[in-house]
């Protein structure tokens, strides 16, 4: 069974594990180095280029609490590979355990259509969309911190909050035409 399922294994106490999926395999390493330094929770980071994950590691792999798709907006291939990987994720993950992280969003050469496509993807799946800056160490640290917030909730380390509840607050929303029109009328 090649689908990745969220609840097929037992959790560890005060531990959280995250899977970073990125086609270019560039930003994930930097993020991982920062994230493992977290002290309040023991963070395990797994890196992958795409899904499905190889079957031979199935036994050693811990339960994955959060899957993060890192998309580089300057390359079309990145988005296509992320979309192809989504098919190998079990449905349980889409209740708040999937997150999209996007780099190079401020680049002037970026075609707007790609950004629209990514936002539609994230909002269609009810997932949060984070923007990250991968060139400076500060940017990497910021991105890691934001991911850790979501990760702690997804791993169950924050009392009174579940991943589904958090995703309702943080998910990406692309308003439809009617909603936009209503907003405009309200303004006028």
């Amino acid at each position: 069974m090649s689908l990745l399922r969220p609840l097929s294994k037992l959790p560890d106490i005060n531990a959280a594990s995250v899977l970073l999926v990125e086609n270019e395999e560039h930003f994930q390493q930097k993020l991982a180095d920062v994230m493992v330094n977290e002290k309040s929770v023991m963070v395990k980071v797994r890196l992958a280029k795409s899904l499905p994950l190889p079957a031979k590691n199935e036994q050693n792999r811990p339960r994955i609490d959060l899957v993060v798709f890192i998309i580089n907006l300057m390359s079309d291939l990145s988005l296509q590979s992320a979309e192809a990987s989504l098919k190998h994720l079990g449905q349980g993950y889409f209740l708040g355990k999937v997150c999209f992280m996007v780099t190079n969003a401020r680049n002037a050469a970026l075609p707007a259509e790609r950004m629209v496509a990514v936002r539609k993807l994230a909002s269609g799946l009810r997932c949060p969309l984070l923007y990250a800056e991968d060139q400076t160490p500060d940017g990497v640290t910021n991105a890691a911190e934001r991911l850790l917030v979501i990760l702690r909730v997804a791993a169950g380390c924050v009392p009174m909050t579940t991943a589904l509840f958090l995703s309702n607050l943080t998910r990406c929303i692309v308003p439809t035409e009617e909603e936009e029109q209503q907003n405009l009328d309200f303004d006028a």
Partner: protein
Amino acid sequence: MDPHTSVARSPFSSVVQKRRSKSYRQSYRSYVGTMSHLGYTPGFTKRRLTTCRLAPKRCSTAEINPEQRALLVREWQLSYVTPLYRFQHGHLKTYSRQLAAFLVSERQKGVAAEVGLESTLKVTFTLVAGMAQTEEEADTVFIKIHSKTPLARPDDPQKVLWSGWLTCVGGDPDYLRTVPEDFVCLPLFCSGGTEGLTALVKAWFQRTFDCCFGRLEINSVNLQWLAALWTDCHARTSIKQLKLVWSVPAEPPMEVIYAMHAQDASELWRSVRKPGLREEEDDGSVGLEEVACFFKGLKSHFYRHFRVELSAGRLTQVSTALGSAKHGGRIKISNSSYMITTLTLLTECALLKMPI
């Protein structure tokens, strides 16, 4: 960096509905509804989706006047211009004199004034008729800088040092109507000549008409649009070949030149365009999905033969017999029949890139 203790504090993405104030001149970007690059849409945007259906690729009729022919001659560098304040098409002669005087004075700055054989500059502003698509659009203005030696006889051919033109072709009529009275909107500026002269001309325009210039790059999606529109024209005017240049970020960086026969490209395009669509049913509009599908076919064909994934790279140049366009903002239009379509697309790029 304070640690996030409360989970509910950070909505990372876009529910932000800004109701505080509404600017009177909505930016073109907000009007058409493209996402700003920072990723969230301000509350009062999105009248329509991003241009997913670019207008017809109808060819214009073949009569062009000699002024339009001058636009076909060379490769132009593109910039966008914000609307010009109090630019009057009736005062072109005055403007030519003023610009000539400005250029001469800039040249002489810091240099001892010499009298005698130094060549002077002559500037001409001309109107290029027949380019504006609607009444709201301003006419195209063509600017030429000649060098003129005082000893030359009047009928000697004058050397053109620099030429450029300001135009607005097929701009969005709703947006053009919101431009205030005193302003003339000519968002696309094409320049050909030395960098120094281009900078001087821009400086004069900025000083006289209170406008801003900026670099206009053609991003990869617009290059794909151009490739598709030109291929579409192959049925009527042969494009000889479709050449695409990609830059792939391999080690060392690789440049891929992918050239194909016009006939093959045209067949692929026709198979993508709603297969089974006959000539009579064709309403002339081209959708973004068709362009994406066309390119997906091209890239997968390349991958099958060479195992190089072109999606990982960037499209930097498109050229056909109808013209060529480069990512850095250089464009050359070689054929007059489809000039209007190309310019419409470029005007739209300029309008979208303008900061106001």
